[in-house]
């Protein structure tokens, strides 16, 4: 397997693949964070999560066009505006969906799966009607182009680095939000024991709506970040949804650390194997391993004790 490669080549290969794995890791974490909040805290399976991401990506796309045409001077920072707008748009849509759809289904988790799948079909077709069936890409600001050469053989693309930094920031923000803020405490209280949380005066319905909204908002930000490393089409969201759910389930629902650990192991395994066997076989092997481990350990890597 390793014949024909010198040791410095091998180190470079592992470093490059490892870095590609880190970008994939950031992508998975970004997608899975929102889902982990919604699935882990509320038990709702949101199959439309990918479509909330795509919404964020389209908002970024519109934003880049607006800045390029009207305020070109600020084009280099349009992305930060787009990110905030993506969060607001996806979050608002999420809260609306929770109010229209999800709140009727809290006791039927499998039915949330079907209903949100229907929602995802509707959103996909809406994107297709509004933005066309072709994939759209955004213009990346100049400072994000190019790559940093570390050694002669190892190069690090700046946009990937940027997405990684962004992921780190968002993950930290979500952790602080959940662990330290008033809202986070309420969310966890509702998760641990809903009737008790209601009894001490927490408006559980409002907490649910906020949780769903913020989960979807994070998906929107993830979509915005995606535009920096790839293009977006109406059905891109569906490509990621299985991976994302596996990440969340593998990590152990309701555990942010577990989500991050499982995203890391899945992405690194996938990326390192990809170099030696074909991409599709690497994916098959990774998924099979994850499914196998889940069969042995259904509760995931990290578990949180929850009272039922």
């Amino acid at each position, binding site marked *: 397997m390793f014949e024909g490669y010198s040791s410095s080549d091998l180190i470079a290969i592992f470093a490059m693949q490892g870095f590609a794995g880190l970008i994939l890791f950031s992508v998975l974490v970004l997608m899975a964070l929102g889902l982990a909040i919604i699935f882990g805290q509320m*038990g709702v*399976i949101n199959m439309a999560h990918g479509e909330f991401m795509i919404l964020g990506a389209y908002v970024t796309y519109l934003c880049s066009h607006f800045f390029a045409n009207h305020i070109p001077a600020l084009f280099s920072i349009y992305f930060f505006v787009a990110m905030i707008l993506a969060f607001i748009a996806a979050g608002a849509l999420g809260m609306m969906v929770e109010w229209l*759809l999800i709140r*009727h*289904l809290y*006791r*039927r*988790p*499998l*039915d949330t*799966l*079907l*209903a949100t*799948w*229907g*929602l*995802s*079909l*509707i959103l*996909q*077709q809406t994107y*297709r*009607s509004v933005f066309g069936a072709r994939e759209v890409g955004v213009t990346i600001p100049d400072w994000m182009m190019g790559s940093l050469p570390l050694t002669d053989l190892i190069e690090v693309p700046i946009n990937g680095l940027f997405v990684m930094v962004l992921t780190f920031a968002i993950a930290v923000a979500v952790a602080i939000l959940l662990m330290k803020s008033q809202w986070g405490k309420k969310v966890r209280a509702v998760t641990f024991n809903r009737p008790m949380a209601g009894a001490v005066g927490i408006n559980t319905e409002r907490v649910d709506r906020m949780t769903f909204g913020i989960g979807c908002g994070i998906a929107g930000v993830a979509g915005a970040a995606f535009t920096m490393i790839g293009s977006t089409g109406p059905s891109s969201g*569906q490509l990621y949804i*299985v991976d994302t*759910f*596996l990440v969340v*389930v593998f990590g152990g629902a309701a555990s942010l650390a577990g989500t991050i650990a499982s995203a890391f192991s899945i992405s690194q395994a996938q990326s390192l194997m990809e170099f030696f066997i*074909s991409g*599709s*076989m690497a*994916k*098959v092997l990774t*998924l*099979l391993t*994850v*499914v196998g481990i*889940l*069969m*042995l350990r*259904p509760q995931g890597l990290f578990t949180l004790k929850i009272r*039922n």
Partner: protein
Amino acid sequence: MNRVVSQRMFTWTELMGFVVLAALIFVVLPMTMDVFRLNLFGKYLTYAFVALGLVLCWGAGGILSLGQGVFFGLGGYCMAMFLKLEASSPENTAIQSTPGIPDFMDWNQVTYLPWWWEPFHYLPFALVAVVLVPVALSFVIGVAMFRRRVGGVYFAIITQAIAAILTILIIGQQGYTGGVNGITDLRTMLGWDIRTDDAKVILYFVNAVLLFACLFMAHFVRRSKLGRLLIAIRDREDRVRFSGYDVANFKIFVFCLGCAFAGIGGAMFTLQVGFMSPSFVGIVPSIEMVIFCAVGGRYSIFGAVYGTLLVNWAKTALSESFPELWLFAMGALFIGVVLAFPSGVAGLYNDWIETPIRKALRRSRGPVIAEPAVQQPNPAE
């Protein structure tokens, strides 16, 4: 629910259900349709096998599998491999660089027949494989999952992942599986041309007979003690377990049975449509198959058939004239069924037609399959 369980095999309403459905499938459809449309409905009926399996697994057992496309596809591929080998006899494939192997292998520089293709030269083996391969896989999955008390949402997600894995595998191993195009250009079965109009009509009826055999089996399972235990498991799994039953075995059995149905459906699909491809295996078709079952009514075996026919017919009609509308309609269907009609068309029929008539007659006729008033979240999940 508290009615005394009838000892008869069928109640009158169930018998009427069978008769009406048989009249529709064996008489009305063949009389009113040309061969092309009949073949189309035959294709829909192959999905009804899957929906019927889902009624057993999901409606009765409470196990929602989002990977039924996998088992449909496995059955279909087993049949397609036999037909493909017959279509690639050395005479038919004389222009290839290595005659006697399927054309897609030749295109992909595979020069010998893989060992696992060899047994598919024989029809009996292929026919057994159509059922056994899906059952074997579902048994492995069932044992691994149900023994460890994985259920509900986690089961759904894992079966979905399996659908994704199989699709990637089939597409990736192009030389052995035909890749994204699938196994195409199937011609004869033991020398009998399956592409002629006559053959299509015959296959439609074979398919219908098989579907009825499966319907009877499903009905029998639900009438039996096993069926009543399944419903008890769906509603309160822990109580059944505490009563001393090995819950996992019942779940494994019903899951395997549902997957066997799906495999038969897949094989009939291949025969009637003339090809098999990964586009019937993946996540999207698997979830669509769930909606066939949900629209018809997840608690009714007849509902599965009617729901499948209804949704597919609507899909064909809508996507012919308004291709954009179809996804909206499908999405609305998912949401509508879940929010407003959780027990589908069959539930509507029960509430608005059957029950009023029954009340008018003031006679109760046999047991009704209990529908859960409120679905309790399963503590094991």
